């Protein structure tokens, strides 16, 4: 704010350029701010190699002094961790694919097709944005109980794919499809394409950025679900990762910190690596969600 530049330089390309002092300040601020973002992950991964009783040792060890894989081994022996990993993975993938299908269809329908009652129906769908699925957890629970689906993965697949969480995806897809120029489809129509073909061959290929954003949102949402699994699931081999992570205790319920941290690292590292590799697509995909207003 105390910029020395009061006289505007007119070089167009240097608009964001900063004087050196300010530049250093910005770097300094960024580095201080970055600490709480990096430290927990760093600490989790290094501590996962520590023997159980040194997690709380003082002074805190930033690097395990005698590294051990015991925590990792125990993670798999105390619980069917591989199975739980698979559960989380396949549920998240199914939900992501399902949501992409449901939301791109609906988004397209609301954006590009005119039909009677469209606005009213869109409003009906939008209520999903207002009613988080947590609000309806009690009736949803009873509903799935009456369908004999409690302690199965169905509630964790069906509700996110068709219910409230997918509405945001539909909204994003609709906002995107609205921006597509109509001429593209007109050309397709001349070639005699039907509605579905217009959607499938013209609109969908163009909507990759939006689909990418929806996919990321949806995957992370499903991957992070916690309330729903602890409500619906009670068999260990059916648990999902978030639920399993909190259950690494000795036989009498005492927490095993190093095992928890090992298991936590195992859930975090693959996604983190994937993210770092594809961070540009990841972040820019999200940035173009149509949430810009």
């Amino acid at each position, binding site marked *: 704010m105390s910029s020395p530049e009061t006289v505007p330089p007119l070089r167009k390309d240097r608009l964001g350029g900063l004087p050196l002092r300010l530049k250093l300040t910005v770097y300094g601020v960024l580095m201080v701010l970055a600490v709480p973002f990096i430290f927990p992950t760093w600490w989790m991964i290094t501590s996962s190699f520590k023997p*159980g*009783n040194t*997690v*709380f040792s003082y002074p805190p060890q930033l690097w395990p002094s005698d590294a051990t894989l015991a925590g990792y081994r125990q993670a798999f022996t*105390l619980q069917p961790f591989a199975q739980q990993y698979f559960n989380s993975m396949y549920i998240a993938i199914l939900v992501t694919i399902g949501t992409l299908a449901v939301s791109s269809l609906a988004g397209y329908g609301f954006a590009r097709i005119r039909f009677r009652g469209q606005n009213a129906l869109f409003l009906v769908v939008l209520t999903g944005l207002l009613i988080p699925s947590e609000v309806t957890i009690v*009736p949803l*629970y*009873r*509903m*799935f*109980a*009456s*369908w*004999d689906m*409690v*302690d199965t993965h169905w509630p964790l697949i069906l509700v996110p794919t068709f219910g409230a969480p997918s509405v945001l995806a539909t909204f994003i897809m609709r906002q995107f499809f609205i921006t597509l120029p109509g001429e593209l489809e007109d050309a397709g129509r001349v070639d005699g394409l039907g509605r579905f073909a217009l959607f499938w061959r013209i609109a969908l290929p163009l909507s990759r950025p939006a689909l990418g954003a929806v996919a990321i949102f949806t995957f992370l949402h499903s991957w992070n679900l916690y309330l729903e699994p*602890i*409500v619906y699931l*009670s*068999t*260990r081999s059916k648990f999902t990762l978030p639920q399993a992570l909190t*259950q690494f*205790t*000795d*036989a*009498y*319920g*005492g*927490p095993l*910190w190093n095992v928890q941290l090992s298991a936590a690292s195992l859930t975090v590292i693959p996604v983190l690596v994937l993210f770092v590799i594809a961070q540009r697509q990841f972040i820019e995909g999200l940035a173009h969600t149509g949430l810009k207003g």
Partner: protein
Amino acid sequence: MRQSRVLRFAAVATAGLLGLTACGGGGDKEDSGPVSLRMTVWSSAAPHLALFKSIADEYKKTHKNVTDITFDPIPFDSYTTTLTTQIAGGKAPDLAWILEGSAPDFVSSGALVPLDDTIAKTSGYDAADITPAATKLWKDGGKLYAYPFSTSPFGVFVNTDLLKKAGQPAPADLIKSGKWTWDQAFAEGSQVNAKTGKAGIVIRDFDYKLWENLSTIWTGWGAQAWSADGKTCGFDKPEMVDAMTRLNKAIFTEKALPGPGTGADFFAGESAMTVAQISRAALLKDAKFGWDLVPLPAGPKGSYSVIGQAGLGVFKQSKHSAAAADFLAYFTNPENSAKLAQFFPPARKSQLNVDTLAKSNPLLKPAQLQSVVIDGIPQGVVKPAHSGSAELSQSVRSALDPLWKPGADVKAVLTSVCSAIAPQLSK
């Protein structure tokens, strides 16, 4: 077509929901087809599960229609929540362990099958052998709704190496000279913390949340959470105020117990003593330190003992409740009760002797069994139990939180506990 799917969904939804009756079907009395049974337990200890499985395998040999018996470990933390959620979802197990705290809820609810008839017709069961004190909590209207398979006294596990290192006398010697009191225990814990940096005394599983476990202390002051009829709050009584004042001092002034939010595991050698049930001895199998098990120290009101109970019940919702009750009777018959005794002290008079217990309990010495288990059970005070236990427990826990800081106004906090739980006690 999608529209018809919508309609079908809607139809199922309405039919399923509006007409939903929460009650499950009663069990069919005579099971002939293949039966599979599920029992929820809160222990995932491998030796426990192996023992259960061996009993189940024996049972299946003589009961060909029972094809499968599974033991389903549910984490202790969320055990009762998970169990009731399963019941609400129509997925009740056939048999379940029930915590003493929630016994009144389950026993009076009508969710369980009375066991008396099954037990009566099981040959060699010898129901008269079961001590009446043990079954008191599990009876309603004269009927037994759950069998107390475990009546486990609390004792103090001691890390003798750590005490020696801190130059403190062994509790076993103090007992001989009649000096094993809470004041002495706190003093030793305080010394251990000061000299070794390790924790002094850990009330196992309390962790400033499960306050019920503090009854192992306040009973020594003659205090109780509420009166025997469950109507009158006991937290604001002078005995309780004295006990909690002493505890607060021990935690925050003497540092005899680790403060809130500090992890310390006795079984990993991180504390000198821990108050726990004897079934935890299994955790000491590979202990790298010398240890002992002694009774709870004496309080101002003299020596005492506290027991935790666990019941085993059969759900009405179960499709095979008759078969489940039959298995329960087998699981707890004299022969199997003796086997279970190595982890879960039985409620049978004939088995409460050093010989029976020592046979199945290689980790504990006869003297330890005598002083903690056999002398402990008859005079034992059961941990607090009340109907509406989950909510009541949470209310007490919230109201007790202000107590866990240095110089807390103990009297005021305990008075607020009573006003917080008054509406629930009067229900």
